[in-house]
């Protein structure tokens, strides 16, 4: 799989379950270590040749790379023992040593941006799924990433709750955030993406502008996949 992403793009990755799209996304910030290949983001490049192991120098580079990448998970993975506000503040404070005088106003403004300004003092378990996922987005944004990765961000949500989350993602797109989304939500992929990738069997089968790919898929496999969804 080879992919170049331009600044400000919103890319959707679709495909059947088990096709490797989530694994590909998780390799982008080294939550999973690829067997081979290379990733370059800004001035950081990690070249993973199949014969060499994962070493300390590579881990350091992965650390630098992650500084530019935010990630949102299907099951939110908020920290249940901290309030919503603390969830957002924790990483800037621990990783960047941002003083509270700066990290707290930043966190509050991000929570306002995702529509959670009234819920800062609540614990995650008391929020709805949609609220939790928006809090997770705010948490990722607090690290000021250049790229946001989403691993099926709305799969665990009812449609109307999913819509709250998708709205936030659209607004980020308008602000010029680069976003890569693994999703099963074809309506979102078609309406919001700059580009859609169809992945099957660990390969990019087809990629292109959403209208073209959804309306007239070039590959037979893409056609078959899209037909099963209708």
């Amino acid at each position, binding site marked *: 799989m080879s992919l170049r992403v331009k600044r400000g793009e919103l890319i959707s990755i679709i495909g059947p379950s088990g096709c490797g799209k989530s694994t590909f996304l998780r390799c982008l910030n080294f939550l999973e270590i690829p067997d081979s290949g290379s990733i370059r983001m800004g001035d950081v490049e990690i070249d993973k040749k199949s014969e060499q192991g994962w070493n300390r120098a590579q881990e350091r580079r992965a650390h630098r790379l*992650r500084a530019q990448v935010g990630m949102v*998970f299907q099951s*939110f993975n908020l920290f249940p023992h901290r309030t919503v506000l603390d969830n957002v503040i924790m990483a800037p404070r*621990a*990783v960047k040593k941002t003083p509270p005088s700066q990290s707290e106003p930043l966190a509050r403004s991000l929570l306002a941006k995702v529509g959670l300004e009234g819920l800062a003092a609540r614990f995650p378990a008391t929020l709805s799924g949609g609220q939790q996922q928006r809090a997770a987005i705010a948490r*990722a944004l607090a690290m000021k990433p250049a790229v946001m990765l989403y691993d099926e961000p709305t799969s665990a949500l009812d449609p109307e709750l999913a819509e709250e989350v998708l709205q936030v993602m659209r607004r980020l797109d308008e602000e010029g955030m680069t976003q890569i989304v693994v999703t099963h939500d074809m309506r979102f992929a078609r309406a919001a993406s700059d580009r859609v990738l169809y992945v099957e069997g660990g390969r990019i089968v087809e990629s292109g502008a959403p209208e073209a790919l959804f309306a007239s898929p070039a590959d037979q496999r893409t056609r078959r996949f899209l037909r099963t969804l209708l």
Partner: protein
Amino acid sequence: MRAFFPLRLLAVLLGAISCLIVPAGSWASSWPGSCPGSWVISPARAESRPASVSPSPEKALRWASDGEANVPYVFHDPEDTTRLEGFEYDMVQEIARRLGRPSRFVQNDWDGLIPGLQRGMYDMVVDGIEMTPDHLQAALFSRPYYVTGDRIVVRRDRQDLNTLAALRGHVVGTIKETLAERLLQRETHVTVRSYEEETYAFSDLRNGRLDALLLDEPIALYYAGVTDDLVIVGDPVGQTRYGIAFRQDNTALHDAVDRVLGAMMQDGTMQDILGRWNLWTPAMARMTGDHTERHVAPVQWLRYQDAMRSQTGWTGRLRRYVGFLPIIAKAAGLTLVVSALAMVIAVALGLVLALGRHYGPRLVRDLSGLYIEIVRGTPLLIQILFIFYGLPGLGIRLSPFFAGVLALGLNYAAYEAENYRAGLSSVPRGQMEAAIALNMTHAQAVRLVIVPQAFRTVLPVMTNDFIALLKDSSLVSVITLTELTKTYIRLSSTYYDYIGTGLLIGAAYLLLGLPFVRFARHVERRLGQSLMRSGHH
């Protein structure tokens, strides 16, 4: 004389272990729990403490005895159990006075008396130790200070059992490793039961498990003489002498004490002391050469008789139990302090072990695992004895308090580590991934995200473990700490009252544990609620 049966086995075992560790040394004996080379003080250490060898006016004379139920030698005053008394106690006070040194009593179990002497915990042992050839090899002995024979004690209905010959065909109890035991073993057709504690021997005689007892005369007098159902019959049998034990190299103190003892025998002081306890006998007159008639009133003997008789009946008992309360409260305090400090060690070390085993590099993982398996796979009692008596052989000396705290803490750390490991595993994988994706380091993720969540799930188990620790702390009673269990042994054997005192001590343990039981329930309830809530999304 005292200590429980398994304890003696353990002492022997420990002796065997330290035989392997410490090169063979100078003293060999039949002393329980000893072996050639065990409990040897290294030469370097012996040189570094020359002060204890020669008596100096300002330095306390540290002497040890087993003051639990050791009537009339050294024992706790039934009317005020914080006070010691006994004819040996009085004798040591006089010796110390004449040496110009304050005396300091050190309580130790019978089995530990000589090992403790070799360890340098005290300067001499005074506990009715018979000057048998075996014992004379184990330590340096003073001139004999008391000579006595053995007496037969029977129930009132069996007064016909009044000679050694008459005991044939009967079950006879005695105290382990005494002249009486050796006399009985020479007799054929006598079934011998040897006891560590005379109180158990007496209760078995009363219960009918034994037909008769053969005991040193002072013990027979002070136990059979204060009850109506038992009597002393026949003439004294055999003869034995008691001596004061010193370390082999401590000839200076030995000589000084011998001089004082000689003077006390000549000027009648010895007769005065023994007379007060009703223990001055023709045999003592012959041994000391003091044939004067000083007509000493047996005041201590009468006082003891009165105390024991007045304590029977309801009101007497009740008054006695009320008198126990401050002692039990103090012991409960010690139990709580020992347990709490041990828990602090267990929690801190347990966390280190759990993190090492969960996240550490291979070597750390294996070492943590090894520690946990070894500690969980061996009895706590062994560990306590090993740390207190075994480690000095390797040059590490700890006070009973620190040895107890350390042993309990090291032991419970292994259990806490397993508890925490389960807690760490219970935190979903996504939590670590989320933290790493936020660019936290592994260590930050563990500290800020994983451990706090694991803590919530392990808290109820930890609280239950603390309650278990509170009860297991009873085992440190074997290293001379007077906590609740030791207090039970002491009080019950002083009054032969195992029921009432047992209920009191049991209640003390329950009361100590109660707040923690309630806390555990509370935490469990809260945790259940929060798990239910988070299960809703």
